């Protein structure tokens, strides 16, 4: 319940304040969002599996975001930022797909 409320409140706040993303954050924000989405989907799946642990969720959420941002940062430093961003998005997207499939099996039994 809390995560859904938090998400809804965050979206509302974001739409309400509509802040400008600072320039230095612009390459990292989309990657961080995708990484966090991956953690949320994973958490949801774990909850359906009955093995959800708040500590693991929090740590995986934060570490996902930090690692994704670090990879993009490293890519920027190496001059392959765009490619590494794509790589991160692809990997995270595959994982989100996997988690979504597991959630679907739980929900629809199919």
């Amino acid at each position, binding site marked *: 319940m809390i995560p859904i409320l938090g*998400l809804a409140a*965050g*979206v509302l706040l974001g739409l309400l304040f509509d802040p400008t993303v600072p320039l230095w954050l612009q390459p990292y*924000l989309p990657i961080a969002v995708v990484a966090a989405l991956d953690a949320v989907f994973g958490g949801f799946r774990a909850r359906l599996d009955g093995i959800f642990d708040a500590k693991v969720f*929090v740590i*995986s959420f934060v570490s996902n975001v930090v690692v994704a941002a670090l990879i993009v940062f490293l890519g920027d430093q190496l001059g392959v930022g765009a490619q590494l961003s794509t790589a991160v998005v692809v990997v995270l997207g595959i*994982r989100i797909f996997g988690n979504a499939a597991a959630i679907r099996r739980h929900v629809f039994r199919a």
Partner: protein
Amino acid sequence: MTDAERPDAPAPADGADAGAPPGDPTATATARRRGRDPLAAALIGVLTLLLGFALAVQVRNADEAQMLAGAREEDLVRILDELDGREDRLRSQLADQRAALRELTGSDSRTATALQEARRRAEALGTLNGTLPAQGPGLTLTVRDPSDEVGVSDIIDIVQELRGAGAETMQVDGVRIGLSSAVTGQPGRLRVDGTPLRAPYEFVVLGEPQNMETAMFIPGGIVQSIERVGGTVEIAQSPALVVDALRPLDRPQYAAPDTGD
């Protein structure tokens, strides 16, 4: 896709082990503990709140940045046309503003001439009025009055006679004489504009020296009338004198300049 659909596909997700590792005997205990830890709940709330916020912001941001990338060809052509038209309008505006700038620069030089003229007039008036120091040829006129007989009217006569002879500005004992200067007091304790004078009275006068000296010596003139009351007058011409005593400028209390329109 098929891989993801296989039920036993090894989930590569941290998200999957966002719970305890599978097969962990404490998994059920952990699951029971869930919801009881307010700190964890708060952290989850904050994290998801941040995620929602970032999501909304990023979506908004991407909207603006990628609106053109997703637009169709016709739309792009239309946008390009609009931009071209806007560029034309802006260019014509630019030309107008340039013309206005040239015009203003031209009138600026005329204004500068007028300003210079006004400054010259202000200097001349300041010299006459006693608000600016002045220098030039002239004469010094020293009135000795050993018997304290030189009075207000004698001083005024000297000033008037000097002015009549072309004096442009003058000072007496360090007091500038202006249009409204007043001489008051008794012989021996004379005051000009309230400032006491001490004999000998020394006038420093700027103007044509020869004319003024001549005017002083005419029969029945200043020199004779001063000598009649027992004083003496010494006059010395000089090519360069300085009149540096200043009068404060009175600010009119009732009269204001007419704007003239």
